[in-house]
């Protein structure tokens, strides 16, 4: 295998690998927290729901969740594209559209979380 690629590319992929794994830890913990919270304290009404999102800590935790999620999505989708989208032009096009889509989602997440603050 090592004879097939130049030394310069030998570390490629390790960053994506680590980003995927490390974000997955936060995503898993946050999922357990949200599901556990909803089971323990079902959302009563609108006032209670917005009061929850008034907390700066809660917004920060959700912000980190969205950031981790988008990074995780990028790595996951990228590996799917690399495995199944063989024509280069197709992989490039879909990857570019995905990147813009994820950036749009990032802006949308930000808009939701800063609403009522700025």
């Amino acid at each position, binding site marked *: 295998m090592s004879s*097939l690629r130049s030394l310069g590319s030998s570390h490629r992929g390790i960053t994506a690998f680590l980003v995927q*794994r490390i974000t*997955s*830890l936060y995503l*898993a913990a946050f*999922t357990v927290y949200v*599901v556990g919270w*909803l*089971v323990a304290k*079902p*959302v009563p*009404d*609108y*006032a209670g*729901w*917005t009061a929850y*999102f008034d907390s700066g800590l809660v917004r920060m935790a959700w912000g980190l969740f969205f950031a981790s*999620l988008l990074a995780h*999505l990028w790595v*996951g*989708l990228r590996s*799917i594209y690399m495995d199944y989208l063989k024509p280069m032009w197709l992989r490039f096009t879909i990857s570019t559209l995905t990147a813009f889509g994820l950036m749009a*989602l990032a802006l*949308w*997440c930000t*808009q*939701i979380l800063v*609403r009522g603050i700025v």
Partner: protein
Amino acid sequence: MQHSVKRPVYLNLFLIRLPIGGVVSILHRITGLLLALLMPFFLWALQASIESSVRFGEIKALLHTGLGRAAVLLMLWILIQHFYSGIRHLLIDVDIGVERAFARRSAWLTLIASVGTVLVLSAFV
């Protein structure tokens, strides 16, 4: 890669029997892709629920219809299957459960656990 010997190619997908670990692995990808596609709908519902008490009521009513409840349970299964198979893959990354018999059992376990968890959570949906 170059092969000196021509190897037979046998890719009839209906005749290849994927081991259970392979099934869970492809399921991890499919559920991951579906979760990615669901994210805009999740953001839409979250934004609407915070926007006003009227929109909050609309979203809540939507989730309490028969179809809404079924959709929530299906999405929960997709999320929880991805969650369990993801944990399985993380453990395999650190060399836990690599041995074949163990890996097969843990693959089955993710399927059983995801359905079980959704059944438990269905009491709260």
